[in-house]
């Protein structure tokens, strides 16, 4: 309930941060916005801890001992959330924490609405403010988690590590594996190995390099694969979960290539011949 006020004021703070932001560079803007939010949470948390009853009355609930205790607890959360932003300026975790906080506040307001002692009009206003704040907090957290969806061109120093990419542009992945054979030998058999049906798929559109390992007698194989992302973010997340994304397929293909070269076949367990996790119980019906 307390953050009803908190979220509302936070939104104001964020608004001014955004206004300031337009005139400064992206990274400074991001930092000052986050800092503003952090300072605000520290201030609000302190007020909630020291004057819980006044804040209760402000949002339309009675100033009972029980509500004061809840208000203080939320004050602690607010303080933690604010201090967290200062210590982890580039981490979206605390921003997501605020989203969770907003949802919690909405639930508490809903509960307070059932009480005869509450001022429903003030509460409705508070709920509206929290809902708005929730939307903004989610948007901010998503931007921080995923630089690609930011409205700003991602040219700032801060964002350079994770460049924004248009969703459908080709991507590159590089993976490496060490094979216990000389580079000559690996190179000689590579073109045959990658034609194996279990391997070819993961190595489509790839470039490969072979170099001796510093230990000698081994080859470091590096493969670059270009791929066209499909089905957007949801598709990418789903395929990653099923280990069917290009990076997982490339790793698996490299492991299989190593097995073919070092031991002459791809190793199976009773579970690996089935799709997905499966009891290690041998199955007569299974086909390789």
């Amino acid at each position, binding site marked *: 309930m307390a953050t009803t006020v908190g979220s509302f004021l936070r939104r104001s703070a964020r608004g001014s941060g955004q206004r300031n932001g337009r005139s400064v560079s992206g990274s400074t803007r991001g930092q000052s916005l986050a800092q503003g939010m952090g300072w605000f949470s520290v201030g609000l948390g302190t007020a909630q801890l020291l004057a819980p009853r006044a804040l209760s009355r402000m949002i339309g609930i009675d100033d009972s001992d029980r509500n004061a205790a809840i208000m203080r607890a939320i004050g602690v959360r607010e303080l933690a959330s604010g201090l967290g932003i200062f210590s982890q300026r580039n981490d979206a975790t605390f921003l997501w924490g605020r989203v969770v906080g907003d949802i919690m506040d909405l639930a508490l307001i809903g509960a307070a609405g059932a009480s005869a002692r509450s001022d429903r009009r003030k509460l409705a206003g508070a709920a509206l403010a929290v809902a708005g704040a929730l939307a903004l907090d989610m948007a901010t957290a998503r931007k921080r988690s995923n630089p690609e969806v930011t409205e700003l061109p991602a040219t700032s120093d801060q964002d350079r590590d994770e460049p924004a990419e248009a969703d459908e542009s080709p991507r590159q992945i590089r993976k490496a594996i060490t094979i216990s054979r000389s580079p000559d030998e690996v190179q000689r058999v590579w073109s045959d190995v990658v034609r194996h049906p279990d391997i070819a798929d993961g190595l489509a559109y790839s470039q490969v390099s072979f170099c001796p390992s510093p230990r000698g007698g081994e080859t470091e194989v590096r493969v670059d694969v270009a791929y066209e992302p499909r089905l957007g973010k949801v598709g990418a997340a789903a395929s990653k979960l099923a280990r069917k994304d290009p990076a997982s397929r490339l790793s698996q293909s490299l492991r299989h290539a190593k097995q073919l070269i*070092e031991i002459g076949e791809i190793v199976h*367990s009773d579970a690996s011949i089935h799709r997905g996790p499966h009891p*290690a119980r041998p199955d007569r019906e299974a086909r390789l």
Partner: protein
Amino acid sequence: MKAACWMGKQKVEVVDVPEPRILNQRDAIVRITSTAICGSDLHLYNGFVQTMERGDILGHEFMGEVVEVGKSVKNLKAGDRVVVPFPIACGACGACKAEYYSLCENSNPNASMAEKMWGHSPAGVYGYSHLLGGFAGGQAEYARVPFADVGPLKIDNGLTDEQVLFLSDILPTGYMGAEMANIKPGDIVAVWGCGPVGQFAIASAFLLGAERVIAIDRFRYRLEMARDRAGAEIVNYEEQSVLEVLKEMTGGRGPDACIDAVGSEAHGHGAIYAYDRAKQALMLESDRPIALREAIMACRNAGTVSVIGVYGGFIDKFPMGSLMNRSLTLRTGQCHVHRYMKPLLQRIERGEIDPTFVITHTMPLHEAPRGYDMFVNKEDDCEKIILKAA
């Protein structure tokens, strides 16, 4: 065939399952005569190991008779009697060539899963979760043994199953624990945990030249076995303060080497134990490192801490300051069993060690559920159970 299957937390059932078959050219099918329940199987039993699936066949300590071999297996034939090492190892990758068999780079078909959890994948293991390959285990009438030309040790000297079965895991594991402890003449070694692996670590420490070995546990019958059969001095941690007693016994220095043969489900008492149980219940840590913490704190300056108890995930309150500021060496690993099988078989043949002293119970395979229950509850002074599959 009959097999002991994991059916959920603290639930093992012996059920009828299809027999295994050759999947790779270097496989063998072994008809199992004797198999054992390992202390690390209790981590599965108690539900502390991720990626177990209902129906998974348990067991990674087994031996028996070869009934079928893949076409690339030249060193074995039907009728050969073999002990099977628990890590599955190809013999050809960089790790195997360096004799780190439990780190074989080719034997875990689910390596990607293990990489997510641990950064890199170790070898596949029989009956020990899908994270370690999803291989069917050996508490069954038959098992498929991959890389049969690398792992299985042929036994043709008339020794009994009981004398050689433990070459599959616990004897080499205890031995490697002592070997990693870097024992020099005059050294005092302390061993946490007097289960079968702890007993073999004690015996191995003596074989490797330890002057004195101190065993720590809370079960009187296990301490008595360590004293009477393995030759250790004993400390019951429920009756004495381990750190104080060890200091007193070692002239204030602490043991030169400390071996953790307990692992992730350590017991303790007081606030620290309650703390770890609570954190584990809330999934804030996956393993309870009570013995490991104590082993580090107890160890002599510049000494060695050797970890052979099994851990799966994350621990809390790890005394890194003690480890670093006192120049301790921490050595760990799942046993590279293949390395030790032949030399230890020779020690058994020469009578230098008789591994049968840990066996307290022998029962038919179909009584596996009773065996697990008895072992986990330490009923009837249970130390080691052998299951007879044939």
